């Protein structure tokens, strides 16, 4: 992973000092709430329903065991013994005291972490494929480019007061596990005609109240021009993005207003005119960065025979976990393990300090001391020797982190919702628990196959509901919590926005409504390999609507 040098460490330390002084001035009345807000947001600090919420950056989801131990320490010392992993591969603490946040940031700095630009109208955490570096299907490791972008974006003097937040995602795999099509800028690493590295650049994607799939504005960008091109996009956006209406301030609205041709023309023109001033990536800098992400010292192993999961171990729990919670690794003899933060009855993405410490120790023993956070709110041990899988399963199972539901209906994405977030219209966590309770039979979930449920407590869409195979959006109806259901969304292959099936349903009927959708799926499904979302695409939403809104089962 990337290791800070003196410059990086100095920058983060100075940021902590700056924020300590800003907090002092706010508490002394020298800064108004309006003045302090953009400053605290740029350090990840929200003022929430019960207490401040601090969002800590995990760049492109990569985390060392020492860093996870520190997150456990923070949860234990400053919070209520747990943290919440988010859809941007970050972690949030829901109960810190404002006065102590500078101390938390200083603790983070001691393990090369920070909360810089995890909120506010600036360039946010760069996200990437959580299988970067180990996926058999990737073109090259995307993380060196992510780190290059992270550094360029950190405290950028020109782009720290944008019209609105700005999210960049990078993928180097055709499977796109980073959902680049729903980001302000998506970067797809490609190989050119002479197999040289370059980038396909997408812009204008995003969810929120106006969900839009990003458009390709540059099919192939030479490697050296990555930052120059990003700078051109950001400058066009910073100058011309709307600032009069917070709901129309994202780059997707500018792109839609100008049209993709005109937007692209402006970016390309800025890129050309600015060439002499823009940063160009030197080959040796890319090489230097690549060195930080060199493969760990793998042993020479062979894949086990027979192939993993092809025969029963005699222990059904282990077999199911192997099948659902592990993935193929590019190295023979190794396996990727997904650590499920979706235990039934728990808030999706939550993890206790004790679990963090134990998992960090496990990572030291079996996965080179490294972990990743995924955008669907799980963690990953990326480099586990196959021979140690039974041991890893037993330990994770004892920790409550081995629920064999990855990719199934109960591997839900879920925002903190009304319980914590001051923006939310409705609760998410208790709906997740309702769904967990209703669909607690793992064999039934396995029969259903891969289904992604994504849930947001308001239209800001932190839970990515638009791109859920089943999306659930909390709405406020006369002070009561109701839920709008969409089906047919997808984050990839290609990305698609779900369609609303009809009027929203009251809270106690969400799981029942999902059961009806699944009933129609079971009836219409063509063979075991047809996923729920494929069936919706093939037959349309009408059969689902009919079933849900039959008069003898009117949710309203």
């Amino acid at each position, binding site marked *: 992973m990337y290791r800070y040098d003196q410059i990086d460490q100095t920058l983060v330390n*100075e*940021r902590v000092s700056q924020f300590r002084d800003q907090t002092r001035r706010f508490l002394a009345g020298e800064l108004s709430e309006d003045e302090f807000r953009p400053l605290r947001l740029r350090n990840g600090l929200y003022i929430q329903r019960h207490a401040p919420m601090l969002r800590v950056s995990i760049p492109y989801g990569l985390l060392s065991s020492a860093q996870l131990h520190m997150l456990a320490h923070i949860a234990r010392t400053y919070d209520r013994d747990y943290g919440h992993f988010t859809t941007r591969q970050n972690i949030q603490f829901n109960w810190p005291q404002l006065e102590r946040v500078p101390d938390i940031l200083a603790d983070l700095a001691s393990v090369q972490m920070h909360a810089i630009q995890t909120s506010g109208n600036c360039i946010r955490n760069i996200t990437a494929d959580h299988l970067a570096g180990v996926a058999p299907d990737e073109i090259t490791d995307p993380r060196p480019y992510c780190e290059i972008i992270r550094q360029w974006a950190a*405290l*950028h003097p*020109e782009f720290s*007061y944008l019209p609105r937040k700005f999210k960049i995602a990078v993928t180097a795999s055709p499977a796109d596990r980073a959902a680049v099509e729903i980001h302000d800028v998506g970067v797809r690493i490609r190989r050119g005609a002479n197999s040289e590295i370059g980038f396909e650049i997408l812009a204008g994607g995003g969810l929120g109240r106006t969900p839009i799939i990003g458009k390709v504005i540059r099919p192939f960008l030479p490697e050296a021009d990555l930052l120059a091109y990003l700078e051109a996009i950001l*400058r066009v956006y910073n100058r011309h993005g709307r600032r009069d209406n917070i709901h129309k301030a994202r780059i997707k609205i500018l792109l839609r207003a100008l049209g993709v041709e005109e937007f692209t023309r402006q970016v390309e023109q800025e890129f050309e005119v600015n060439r002499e001033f823009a940063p160009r*990536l*030197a080959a040796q800098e890319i090489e230097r960065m690549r060195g930080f992400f060199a493969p760990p010292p793998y042993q020479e192993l062979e894949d086990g025979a027979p192939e993993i999961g092809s025969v029963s171990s005699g222990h059904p729990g282990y077999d199911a976990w192997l099948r659902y919670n592990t993935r193929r690794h590019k190295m023979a003899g190794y396996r990727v393990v997904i650590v499920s933060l979706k235990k039934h009855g728990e808030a999706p993405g939550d993890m206790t300090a004790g679990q963090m410490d134990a998992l960090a120790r496990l990572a030291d023993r079996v996965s080179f001391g490294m972990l990743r956070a995924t955008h669907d709110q799980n963690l990953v041990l990326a480099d586990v020797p196959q021979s140690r899988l039974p041991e890893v399963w037993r330990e994770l199972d004892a920790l409550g982190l081995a629920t064999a539901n990855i990719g199934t209906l109960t591997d839900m994405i879920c925002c903190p919702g009304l319980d914590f977030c001051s923006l939310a219209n409705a609760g998410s966590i208790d709906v997740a628990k309702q769904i967990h309770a209703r669909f607690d039979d793992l064999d039934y979930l396995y029969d259903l196959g891969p289904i992604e449920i994504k849930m947001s407590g308001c239209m800001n869409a932190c839970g990515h509901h638009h791109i859920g195979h089943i999306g659930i959006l909390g709405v406020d109806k006369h002070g009561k919590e109701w839920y709008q259901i969409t089906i047919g969304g997808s984050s990839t292959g290609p990305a698609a926005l779900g369609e609303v099936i009809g009027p929203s349903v009251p809270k106690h009927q969400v799981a029942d409504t999902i059961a009806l959708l699944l009933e129609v799926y079971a009836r219409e499904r063509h063979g075991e390999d047809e996923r729920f979302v494929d069936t919706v695409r093939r037959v349309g939403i009408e059969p689902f609507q009919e079933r849900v809104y039959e008069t003898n089962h009117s949710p309203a």
Partner: protein
Amino acid sequence: MRQIIRRREIVADDARYPGEEASPQLRLVQPAADFIAAKLAGQAPDASAAILIGPTDEVESLAEQLPLLGLIVIAFPKIGEGRGFSQARLLRQRYGYAGELRARGAIKRDQLFFLARCGFDSFDLDPSEDLVAALAAFDVFSVAYQDGSDALVHVRRRAAPA
């Protein structure tokens, strides 16, 4: 008497804006649009004129006038306004403006480091700001990842020599 920061010193403001009382020590800062209109009408501008740019003004239209200008004031009318950072960058980098470049409005010491790095060299901060305390904010960071107009910080060189 209003005070500003100019090249890291607190000095008396030498500018007045439309609607403010005239005084022999103060030079009028006129809106950029008025300046261009007068120019187009054939009026010869004062030597080293002073103009005010708002967030939606396009700096491209001023490119040819820059040699005539001695002071450009860029307005930051609201907290969080960020267009002025790009305007300053363009004036300094692309169009080679070498005169005084001032940021004015809803800005405090917390923005000074970024403003200076984008090329501003004078600052008319929010009236509530303590200017003496604000002076230290230029040095709040000693390092940066991006090139800037100031030569004050250690910038990591990632670029190949051109």
